[in-house]
């Protein structure tokens, strides 16, 4: 050994414990870590994020939006781990949406059902048919593949809200990670969507058209580490996640970020930090306060008959709370007179009436048919 080198630590060892062989290089810090040290920093960073944002309070019931995919499976696993390790005193419930896609969702719902046992959490599955009177297969059969992302976005968002409301829960966790957030920031920046740019970096999102608040404990967690955590821990997840023709623009932003990351590993965190520093000079929009949201969730939960939007059940979502910010058709919180889901449903139902007049048949499995093509375009 040459005497010029002061570093006595063998280069092949983990940079934290200096005792074990490293298995990965962290994208965030470029540190080379062994499995136990990786688990430790991965979980601890998420715990720190939770504590800094004061995400939970003792006795709170919190839903985890569970798709059976890697992000939400790792989320459920880590929340269980941290809840036990640090005694948050939180009760977590898995909440899944069954979009009604023949041959696809079945597998991922089976995964979620196993997760329920593995993590001893309650599981609630809400179906599109139950909520909207339409399954995703039927929607695709009706409108084709062109615009179904609009439907899946609006319906999916409301489905999670309505599912939580059914459970009397006003707080949902989603598996959105740092890569997702960097993409969203970049997309809003490129579109000049200043209002969204201002809001999209928040760890807790209070939206004017949602009765439920959403949090992202993985805001600073890299996708690479989520994938490796799931892989090394051998977590049970469903790896072909259906995204239903993902927005082309998001795909472009994603590729751009991945390419940036290849030359500058800190790109993702840098974009998030930049996004956080953007501040709207004057934010004129008014969002419901946590107290208002809580009230809505409670009142909405007590009305149990109104799960079917298609049948229109105004009373359920429309008790003592002001009418001003509610959908006139279904009573769901909305900036406009009619919420987005009801507008989409109106179009669908008009189409269905026409189809029935024409003597058309409702094909099933339409969504599954197009799946292979969608996967080819990520």
């Amino acid at each position: 050994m040459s005497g010029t080198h002061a570093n006595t630590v063998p280069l092949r060892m983990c940079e934290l414990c200096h005792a074990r062989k490293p298995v990965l290089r962290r994208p965030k810090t470029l540190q080379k870590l062994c499995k136990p040290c990786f688990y430790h920093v991965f979980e601890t960073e998420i715990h720190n994020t939770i504590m800094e944002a004061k995400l939970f309070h003792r006795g709170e019931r919190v839903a985890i939006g569970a798709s059976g995919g890697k992000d939400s499976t790792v989320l459920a696993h880590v929340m269980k781990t941290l809840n036990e390790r640090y005694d948050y005193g939180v009760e977590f419930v898995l909440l899944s949406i069954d979009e009604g896609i023949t041959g696809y969702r079945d597998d991922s719902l089976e995964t979620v059902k196993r997760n329920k046992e593995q993590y001893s959490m309650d599981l609630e599955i809400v179906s599109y048919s139950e909520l909207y009177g339409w399954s995703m297969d039927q929607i695709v059969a009706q409108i084709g593949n062109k615009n179904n992302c609009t439907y899946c976005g609006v319906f999916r968002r409301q489905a999670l809200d309505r599912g939580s409301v059914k459970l009397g829960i006003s707080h949902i966790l989603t598996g959105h990670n740092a890569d997702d957030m960097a993409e969203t920031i970049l997309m809003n920046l490129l579109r000049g969507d200043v209002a969204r740019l201002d809001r999209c970096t928040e760890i807790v999102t209070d939206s004017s058209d949602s009765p439920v608040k959403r949090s992202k404990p993985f805001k600073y967690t890299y996708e690479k580490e989520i994938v490796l955590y799931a892989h090394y821990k051998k977590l049970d997840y469903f790896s072909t996640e259906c995204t239903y023709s993902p927005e082309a623009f998001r795909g472009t932003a994603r590729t751009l970020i991945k390419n940036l990351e290849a030359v500058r590993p800190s790109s993702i965190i840098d974009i998030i930090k930049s996004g956080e520093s953007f501040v709207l000079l004057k934010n004129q929009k008014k969002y419901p306060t946590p107290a208002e949201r809580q009230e809505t969730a409670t009142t909405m939960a007590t009305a149990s008959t109104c799960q079917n939007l298609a049948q229109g059940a105004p009373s359920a979502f429309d008790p003592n709370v002001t009418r001003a910010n509610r959908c006139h058709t279904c009573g769901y919180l909305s900036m406009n007179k009619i919420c987005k889901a009801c507008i989409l449903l109106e179009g669908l139902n008009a189409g269905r009436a026409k189809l029935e007049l024409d003597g058309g048949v409702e094909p099933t499995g339409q969504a599954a048919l197009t799946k292979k093509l969608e996967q080819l375009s990520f």
Partner: protein
Amino acid sequence: MKINIEFSGGLETVFQNIRKYSIDLEAPSDGSPLNIKYLLTYMVDVLMDADSKANGGVGLFLLDGLIRPGVLILINDTDWELEGEEEYLLQEGDIILFASTLHGG
């Protein structure tokens, strides 16, 4: 040389929907090294189905001839970034896992 290839995260859809391959790899005839870089070319030439190739499947796997950013490679369960990446010389019995991080979930 016997090499095992595995996919996770959806990449198998462009490789004939087969998740695990066990292949017998011969040294390149031009004398270039039997490394990951060579393996990537081999996979596109031999393992990727014609349908996927015709529909942009190569672009999901490679970018400018190198692995596409967002696809993780594990060599015998270790991050390939610790093993020399493209230059890693394949060894008998290696398990090479390709995990796509690009898919949501």
